């Protein structure tokens, strides 16, 4: 049987335009890598960074590293947990970071801090001094349609949610319980912090945008009512990025995820640890509200 000619070769005008439009179909450049990270088949930058430091290759100062890479640093930071509708919030350009001066090298933490400067801004142009808090997701929004004009389900609409019951979800308890308790970013010893602060090339804007996009996957999984998938992605995040630039946000997302899975005790414990380590982070307000709600649920089961 001979194949007919492709329509695109025999069409013209409107039909041709429609068919040609599909030629733009392509995933974003980092998508395959994010999939590899999620599946745990690539090693993380945290490990690479440690290996570099241990090997004594980090001879250049942090400032020197940054100066060499500054022009290449363009971190499009999405505050994945606190941002409304997951919008891109801040563009940390090289001059922006350079203006911080030698005393403030572009470590992952400074990128995170810069990103958080924009927490109160959203793409609709509104500015706010308050962080925009993503509400915890509803537990079972599987059938809820996306609202018109929105990229996310209502469960992630930016509002302080009302308390909700988190039923004990049917998940594989071994999956949650067998993994080590998540580290609370920032609660690390000085030696670890020193390694962490020595930025590897992977801690460049590219790695940051990778991390943001990756956490956004987890956030969307949670938003569509798939907390088990969100937890899998957060575990993969922790394995790959370690204490990445958005490790705190990852922990906050994990708290919401654990709660959605019905793992209230784990969510509560992690929430308390995050608050202890980061009492004044922009996301702490959200964590506090979750912890208080869970405390109330414990008192009045």
């Amino acid at each position, binding site marked *: 049987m001979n194949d007919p000619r492709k329509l695109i070769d025999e069409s013209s005008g409107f039909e041709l335009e429609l068919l040609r439009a599909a030629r733009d*179909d392509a995933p974003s450049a980092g998508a395959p890598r994010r999939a*590899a990270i*999620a599946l745990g088949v690539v090693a993380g930058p945290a490990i690479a960074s440690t290996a570099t430091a241990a090997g004594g290759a980090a001879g250049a100062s942090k400032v020197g590293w940054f100066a060499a890479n500054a022009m290449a640093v363009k971190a499009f930071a999405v505050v994945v947990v606190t941002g409304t509708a997951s919008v891109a919030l801040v563009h940390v350009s090289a001059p922006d970071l350079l203006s911080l001066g030698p005393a403030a090298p572009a470590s992952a933490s400074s990128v995170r801090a810069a990103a958080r400067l924009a927490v109160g801004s959203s793409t609709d142009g509104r500015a706010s001094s308050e962080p925009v808090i993503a509400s915890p997701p509803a537990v079972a929004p599987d059938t809820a349609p996306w609202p018109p004009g929105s990229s996310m389900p209502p469960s992630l609409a930016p509002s302080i949610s009302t308390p909700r019951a988190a039923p004990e979800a049917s998940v594989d308890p071994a999956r949650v319980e067998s993994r080590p308790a998540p580290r609370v970013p920032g609660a690390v010893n000085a030696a670890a912090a020193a390694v962490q602060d020595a930025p590897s090339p992977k801690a460049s804007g590219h790695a940051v945008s990778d991390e943001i996009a990756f956490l956004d996957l987890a956030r969307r999984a949670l938003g569509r009512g798939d907390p088990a998938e969100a937890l899998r992605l957060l575990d993969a995040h922790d394995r790959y990025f370690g204490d990445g630039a958005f490790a705190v946000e990852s922990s906050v997302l994990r708290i919401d995820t654990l709660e959605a899975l019905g793992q209230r005790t784990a969510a509560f414990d992690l929430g308390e640890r995050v608050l202890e380590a980061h009492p004044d982070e922009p996301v702490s307000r959200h964590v506090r509200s979750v912890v208080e709600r869970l405390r109330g649920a414990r008192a009045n089961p």
Partner: protein
Amino acid sequence: MPRTPPGLDSAEAVPGVPGGATCALAPDHDARIRALLADHYNFVWRQLRRLGLPADHAEDAAQQVFVVASRRVADILPGSERSFLFGTARRIAAELRRKTGRRPDAAPESLAETPDAAPLADELVDRRRARAMLDDVLDGMQEDVRAVFILFELEELTIAQIAELMELPIGTVGSRLRRGRNEFREVAKRLKARGAAPGARR
């Protein structure tokens, strides 16, 4: 020749950490998954997009496809990888579409990603409009017809390749393709008659 997506190849490794120190599974398994991603990720993503998922949902769905592949990698016969992935992609796309009840809206980030937030050129707007209309045309097709149509007309596979990929008789592929082409032309004609063609508003 397989297309290698940017940022990953089948010999993917973080420099200095061969094989991935954090990998919990067997090295063979990991190498095969990396090869699947390198050779087929873009293909899977494109088909998910053309099966009706907007770009960001296509990435979520692609993740799910490869999670399934990772779990069942031992069952995937060499040479049948693409067939397995396409079948899985169809099931996951259908499931996601069922859950949402319709095609989820495209993410607003697609506009935010425009470099430097420059005003959109008319040409770009027209291309996006045309892409959205192509979605509408494809949405009007039955899923099995759509699958054949997108593989033949958009992915530019041959009928024989599609028959092998979908494990269908060649005659069935041919008849579905004819239906798809007829439907495509009819809907395109109707859209054009309504003045919906890109650029028509100018």
